[in-house]
């Protein structure tokens, strides 16, 4: 597609439920990033994929968070046993290769997650 797309755009769930957030990167981009943005804050890094593998998952806050990218394109961020503190905008970004310095990351519109 023309840009990074994310679905759903909004998600409301109850505490303790499981959610999946989807990211479709720009075609041909091998690097994919997940960030989380809380109200009034800048985006915070969660996990980065180079191809199918997670190259850096140091930003995942705990083991309730998991992400996959099985075919090196679409990625799914999975959150188990959601907590109210998980409420945020989840942003996905992609870049061409992810191996070069100063490579521009292009962001999707985000998924707004609200945990009641």
């Amino acid at each position, binding site marked *: 597609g023309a840009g*990074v797309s*994310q679905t759903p755009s909004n998600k409301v769930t109850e505490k303790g439920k499981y959610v999946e957030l989807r990211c479709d990167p720009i075609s041909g981009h091998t*690097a994919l*990033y997940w960030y989380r943005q809380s109200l*009034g*804050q*800048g*985006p*915070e*890094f969660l996990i*980065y994929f180079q191809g199918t593998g997670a*190259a*850096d998952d140091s*930003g995942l806050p705990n083991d309730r968070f998991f992400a996959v990218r099985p075919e090196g394109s679409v990625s799914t961020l999975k959150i188990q046993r959601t907590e109210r503190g998980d409420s945020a905008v989840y*942003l996905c*970004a992609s870049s061409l290769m*992810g*191996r*070069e*310095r*100063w*490579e*521009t*990351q*292009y*962001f*999707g*519109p*985000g998924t707004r997650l609200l945990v009641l």
Partner: protein
Amino acid sequence: SQELEQSPQSLIVQEGKNLTINCTSSKTLYGLYWYKQKYGEGLIFLMMLQKGGEEKSHEKITAKLDEKKQQSSLHITASQPSHAGIYLCGADKSGNTPLVFGKGTRLSVIA
């Protein structure tokens, strides 16, 4: 870890006025990115600066990186309502990949 501080946190300017937003790093910046964010939208890439003293312009927006590569400024000339939004600076932590962001500067432009 590298931290980015943006100032001001928010800014209200009259249409047609010039303004400057600053981004200061606790460490040397290896790559500095400016993004704009509007509600309901993702981050829109504006510019990226790499070298000390570098300056880039796009339409009425100019971004500069100081010689020491620890501070960047974003200057908007003759602001318009379309410039309203949240401006975020992001830094390349150590060369490649995940960015560290400032908290953003919320710009409002009033007619």
